[in-house]
């Protein structure tokens, strides 16, 4: 049994679970497929998420009926503990010990970036938006969660400023916008085995007839339980069964395995092997 790992999400990241945007694949994976991720939001961000649904409705993105559906589905997820609300008031404002902890947090050493402006022929300091209250609370909670869990917790946000502050504070933070499944930390991954990044040649063949080639491609990473490859010339679909022949750098076939497609993201395909490989084979 793997230990649950707290993942604190900001409001904009939570929205990606309900509406398909860039980065939604990662958020859906955390919610529905990761065996360890436990989704947390702060109580302040519950209001923020609901407010986004209201604003979207006012701007014509959906009807009143749809707005009710979005909000009630979000609340149902909270009710069913799919999302755990971190009660900032109960956990922090009423616990005066927390203020002592906060004073130990060093202010992040953030310097404004220097940007060259050709019209002026010189550099100016780029102004940064200050983090809003919700973001500040989230970062404070994350700082404490890091101390309590010995850094076994993650922050997910696509807000550049939050990510910079998190980075300066040494917090483990991820931006779902720019990442792939391979960038997810190992302990959130449903694949149990440690992956090794490697680019080996793979020949994909029909699972029922080995003489039918589906194309040659390269591995992105590999582990005892499966492999991630680039899409071959005949595109693979979810649940497809494939015969894989993986070659080493001397172009000798070292692995012959039957695998099932479990995930597809952009041009990357993850396959689970039918039987585990020996760990020393690759």
């Amino acid at each position, binding site marked *: 049994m793997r230990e649950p790992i707290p993942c604190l999400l900001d409001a904009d990241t939570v929205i990606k679970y309900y*509406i398909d945007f860039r980065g939604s694949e990662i958020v859906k994976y955390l919610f529905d497929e990761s065996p360890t991720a436990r989704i947390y939001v702060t109580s302040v961000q519950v209001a923020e998420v609901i407010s*986004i649904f209201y604003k*979207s409705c006012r701007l014509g993105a959906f009807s009143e009926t749809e707005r009710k559906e979005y909000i*009630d*589905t979000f609340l149902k997820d909270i009710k069913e503990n799919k999302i755990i609300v971190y009660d900032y008031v109960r956990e922090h404002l009423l616990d005066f010990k927390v203020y002592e902890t906060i004073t130990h947090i060093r202010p992040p050493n953030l310097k404004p970036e220097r940007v060259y402006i050709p019209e002026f022929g010189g550099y100016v300091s780029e102004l940064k938006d200050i983090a809003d209250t919700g973001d500040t609370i989230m970062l404070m909670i994350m700082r404490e969660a890091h101390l309590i869990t010995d850094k076994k917790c993650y922050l997910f946000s696509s807000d550049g400023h939050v990510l910079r502050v998190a980075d300066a504070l040494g917090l483990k933070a991820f931006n779902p916008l720019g990442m792939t499944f391979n960038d997810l930390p190992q302990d959130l991954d449903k694949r149990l085995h440690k992956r090794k990044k490697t680019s080996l040649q793979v020949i994909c063949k029909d699972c029922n007839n080995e003489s039918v080639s589906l194309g040659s491609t390269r591995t992105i990473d590999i582990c005892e339980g499966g492999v991630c490859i680039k899409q071959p010339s005949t595109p693979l679909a979810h649940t497809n069964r494939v015969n894989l022949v993986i070659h080493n750098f001397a172009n000798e076939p070292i692995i012959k395995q039957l695998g099932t497609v479990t995930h597809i993201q952009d041009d990357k395909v993850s396959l689970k092997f039918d039987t585990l490989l020996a760990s020393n084979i690759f």
Partner: protein
Amino acid sequence: MREDKLARHSKAENRERLDAFNVKLSENCSNAVPHDKLRHLSEDKKKIIEKLTEK
């Protein structure tokens, strides 16, 4: 402050159910739908929401 705003404010002040959020959760969330149904928004509508959320 306008009268209707005052009335709303006083209603909030006198709110008896301080655990209104938990009460709302304990109700049925009757408008909830399967997640897949929510994700079928058109591209232009998605863009409106994406603009709201991306900083």
